[in-house]
């Protein structure tokens, strides 16, 4: 943190400010603004935009916010948010299992992590949705919706990635912290929860943020389950109107807006948190 501050506070010797300026960000923002202008002024772009964000059909079924940002976007956001929340739980459990001294727990956790890491995400989404979920829920016609299967699949996949992040985060805390906590009479669980994890989570926050953004992008894969997220909306629009250029530019625009906003938010949040550590 201090090194970073020093770097940013350092008085730039001539020309260096020009060199350090985030031109890439300007370029991205110009792209986003251009897209905004196209959507506002070009009817074909506007039509594609309204369809893809999901502003069609029975809008009265949805609360106002959803109507405003569109059903396609809200499906993407919902899938990511809920999927990530579950992924955090799976990841924490597997990460703790990974460093457990219990042979069964440790091997179960390693099995999970290695299994997921060895299979492509797209294949896993199919496998979870059409094999694992029916198997757990008992039968193909178990009535679990495709969007729930999609969320579950993403959670399972990202849980394995997060497990490694949690493990690394916990292992980054010096052994003395656990010893001090235990020597005061805390149980292993109390020490983990009150001493180790709060510190570990602070350390891994940037990594968690990265994976959250990665998951937002990977949520586009659930369109293969015909879940109507923005990607599925874009594909539907493209295939029914043959307006490929508008469809995919708008899809790109939507994802880029979301990921950029998120990463700026995360940076701001990290900096704020950094001040209190």
């Amino acid at each position, binding site marked *: 943190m201090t090194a970073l501050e020093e770097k940013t506070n350092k008085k730039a010797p001539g020309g260096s400010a020009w060199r350090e300026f985030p031109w890439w960000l300007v370029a991205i923002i110009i792209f986003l603004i251009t897209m905004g202008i196209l959507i506002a002024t070009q009817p074909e772009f506007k039509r594609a935009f309204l369809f893809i964000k999901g502003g069609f059909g029975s809008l009265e079924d949805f609360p106002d916010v959803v109507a405003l940002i569109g059903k396609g976007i809200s499906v993407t956001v919902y899938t990511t948010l809920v999927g990530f929340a579950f992924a955090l739980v799976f990841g924490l459990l597997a990460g703790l299992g990974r460093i457990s001294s219990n042979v069964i727990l440790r091997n179960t956790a390693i099995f999970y992590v290695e299994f997921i890491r060895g299979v492509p995400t797209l294949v896993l989404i199919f496998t979870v949705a059409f094999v694992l979920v029916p198997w757990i829920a008992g039968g193909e016609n178990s009535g679990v919706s495709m969007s729930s299967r999609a969320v579950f699949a993403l959670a399972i996949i990202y849980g394995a990635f997060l497990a490694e992040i949690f493990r690394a985060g916990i292992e980054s805390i010096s052994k003395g912290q656990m010893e*001090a906590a235990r020597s005061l*009479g*805390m149980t292993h669980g*109390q020490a983990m929860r009150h001493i180790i994890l709060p510190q570990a989570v602070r350390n891994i926050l940037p990594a968690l943020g990265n994976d959250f953004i990665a998951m937002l992008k990977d949520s586009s894969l659930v369109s293969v389950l015909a879940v109507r997220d923005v990607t599925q909306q874009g594909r539907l629009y493209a295939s029914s109107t043959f307006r490929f250029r508008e469809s995919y530019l708008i899809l790109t625009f939507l994802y880029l807006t979301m990921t950029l906003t998120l990463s700026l938010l995360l940076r701001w949040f990290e900096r704020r948190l950094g001040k209190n550590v």
Partner: protein
Amino acid sequence: MFDTNDVIVIDNLHKYFGHIQAVKGVNLSVRQGEVVIIVGPSGSGKSTVLRCINHLEVPTNGAVYIDGVHLEDKKTDINKVRAEVGMVFQQFNLFPHLTVLENITIAQRLVRKRNQEEAKQIAMQQLTRVGIPEKADAYPRQLSGGQQQRVAIARSLAMNPKIMLFDEPTSALDPEMIKEVLDVMLVLAKEGMTMVVVTHEMGFARAAADRVVFMDDGSVVEVASPEQLYTNPQHDRTKLFLSKILGH
């Protein structure tokens, strides 16, 4: 079996780390209110013995009893015993994400089940005792090494332990801060706390210790009063060690 005044009994303690034998059959009993200093060269097993007293290390062989409770017994609730045995580390090991006050209250609340008010009040008493009540709301990184170590002592004392263990509590400190920590420990010793201290501070040993234990190569070589051990050591290995630490 034991003298009832012995609050710590170490019985034929052996500890292996893989093939390294760190402790080779140590016997040591500490009476209520006694202050015992452990000295010895690096790697002689001092920390290992100390850490077996609160079960941070598990002996390979032998037994440790605290107040007659056998630590290695599966039925022993180790967390209950540890609450009675405070430990102060060379590296302080304060919790960096918590304020000084929270550092001192957290175990009181979780382990002693005290409410926030009571825990806070006891924490402030202990902070006053170690001389830095004004640092209650600071974070550990805002304190000097000496202040951090005093907070660590206050954190242990707030649990009302019967025994205090210190593992080279002043070795990581700049010379000008050593005294402020030793002064706190000296008062504690005078008040009758049972203490086992690994330290090479001879001034402290002379002022506070009832006995000094010299360890070498995993064994206890010599046990004597500080006066006796420092001025008239009986064993060659003790003499050699003392000549080295007095040499510089």
